[in-house]
């Protein structure tokens, strides 16, 4: 679909129909004091000047050659085919038309994305995506609330930025949120969950692996929560999802996650991709768009926006969500990534992340960075710091390395992915040693 400006001729025709001489006359009804004569913006620039000014801006970015930090955003290898496909004009510039079915290609690409997310999470239904992992988690909490149950429990092991997003959403629903403090092993406190006296808990949000990189016993948590009538939302890392028991297999009700690791560059924090999938019984509560497959009157395969009665333009004030868009370009990027990697490729990435993170943890342990938790971890882990963390990270920065993230109580949250070579890791460890 083309987005073209109206020609002068068309504008004149419209004005003539309205009986007006100029466009300004259209706005005559506005109070004069509200009209701005001149916008305070700089003069237009030529192409070469625009390029230069953006180059100057981007030169301010510090691009590290080696990154040992994750905490929600992860540097992974992006196969060349991913941007090549996703940047095709028909994907990149296409906005879903208001009569969405006109654009069968757009709908099919979303349908494929939904299918892959269902496979990855072991769930029955996925939506067309949301803005990011944090908003996906917050929307999932809203899905679980009903007339009687409003309270949400969030494991203290969930990414703090996700917790804040859920709190913000819940505040607007006037619904209570409580943090379930972790055990000393850094995991969901199943005993505390079992002992809770609240009877109005709609949902428990956990993360797999959690913010500190640790694997949760999701099946056990689900078992205990379900006995209490609490629905379980698992925010899962999509790379880890390739190797751990799926969220669906663990019996959880909703899977959400941050899709950035699926071929989307770190990009200074966005645009990212939230994915959401659920069991069939929650189908009518999942927000946003769902693309379905059907047949047209000639029996050809066709794609449609489906179950729209869930959506806010029909439910109006009783809608559980105001979500009315999706993150199509990022979803396409993730789809291309998943299909080019395949299940085997994603498993390989996951195992490389796991092995490299464990090698890193082991090497750091040898020079005095002791692991804070005993639990099994994926590609992130927390160590105590035997030195001043700020000084350490400054030293690493001078060597073009982004070190681990400083966290509470003088801890460091480290991360390794397939991008960190053994040489990189050994180099990091010897630099750390120099600071001690």
């Amino acid at each position, binding site marked *: 679909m083309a987005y073209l400006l109206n020609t002068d001729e068309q504008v004149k025709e419209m004005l003539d129909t309205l009986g007006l001489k100029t466009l300004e006359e259209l706005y005559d009804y506005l109070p004069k004091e509200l009209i701005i004569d001149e916008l305070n913006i700089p003069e237009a620039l030529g192409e070469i000047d625009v390029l230069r000014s953006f180059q100057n801006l981007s030169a301010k970015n510090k691009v590290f050659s080696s990154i040992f930090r994750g905490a929600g955003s992860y540097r992974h290898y992006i196969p060349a085919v991913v941007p090549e496909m996703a940047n095709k004009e028909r994907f990149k510039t296409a906005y879903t038309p208001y009569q969405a079915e006109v654009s069968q290609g757009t709908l099919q690409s979303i349908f494929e994305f939904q299918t892959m997310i269902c496979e990855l999470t072991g769930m029955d239904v996925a939506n067309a995506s949301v803005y990011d992992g944090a908003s996906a988690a917050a929307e999932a909490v809203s899905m679980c609330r009903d*007339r*009687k149950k409003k309270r949400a429990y969030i494991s203290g092991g969930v990414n703090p930025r996700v917790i804040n997003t859920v709190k913000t959403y819940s505040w607007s629903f006037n619904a209570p949120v409580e943090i379930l403090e972790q055990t000393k092993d850094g995991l969901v406190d199943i005993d505390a969950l079992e002992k809770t006296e609240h009877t109005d808990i709609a949902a428990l949000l956990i993360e797999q692996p959690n913010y500190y990189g640790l694997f949760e016993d999701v099946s056990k948590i689900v078992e205990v929560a379900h006995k209490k009538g609490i629905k379980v939302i698992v925010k899962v890392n999509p790379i880890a999802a390739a190797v751990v028991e799926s969220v669906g297999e663990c019996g959880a009700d909703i899977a959400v996650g941050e899709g950035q690791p699926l071929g989307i560059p770190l990009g200074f924090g966005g645009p990212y991709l939230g994915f959401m999938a659920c069991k069939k019984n929650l189908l*009518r509560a999942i927000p946003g768009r769902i693309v379905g497959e059907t047949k047209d009157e000639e029996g050809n395969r066709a794609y449609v926006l489906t179950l729209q*009665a869930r959506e806010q333009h*029909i*439910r109006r004030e*009783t809608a559980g969500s105001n979500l009315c868009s999706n993150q199509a370009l990022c979803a396409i990027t993730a789809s291309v990534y998943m299909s080019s990697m395949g299940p085997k490729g994603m498993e390989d990435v996951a195992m490389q992340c796991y092995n490299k993170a464990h090698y890193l943890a082991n090497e750091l342990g040898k020079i005095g960075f002791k692991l804070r938790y005993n639990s099994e971890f994926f590609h992130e882990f927390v160590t105590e710091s035997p030195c001043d963390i700020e000084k350490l990270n400054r030293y690493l920065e001078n060597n073009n390395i982004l070190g681990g993230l400083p966290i509470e109580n003088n801890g460091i949250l480290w991360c390794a992915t397939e991008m960190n070579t053994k040489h990189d890791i050994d180099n990091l460890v010897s630099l750390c040693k120099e600071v001690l």
Partner: protein
Amino acid sequence: MKNPENLKYSKDHEWVREEGKKVVVGITDYAQESLGGLVYVNVPEVGDEVVATESFCDVESVKAVSDIYSPVSGKIVAVNELLLDSPESINEDPYGNGWIVEIDEITDTDELMTAQEYEDYCNTLSKE
């Protein structure tokens, strides 16, 4: 369809059938006709407390979602499980198989009409 004489009716188009201390609640023929083909009924749960004139259930037709308002205050003791798989029962048999809930421990009742009064009321609506 004739509105049965033995039922009472609310202005929000719900019907009430008294069964001893309990009541059975559904929506009227007029309501199902206005809503069109139902595709989903979001039934409440047994044990839910309901309040007269407040929403306790919503129904989804092809183009709209509408709230169902409770004609009484009380506690839900049974829900029509049939509606989960066959929401169209409400369209086909609003006063029979299409019942929605059974309510007990009633503490308050909305102003209700007889079949004749309700019919007159509907006639005034369709004239508008």
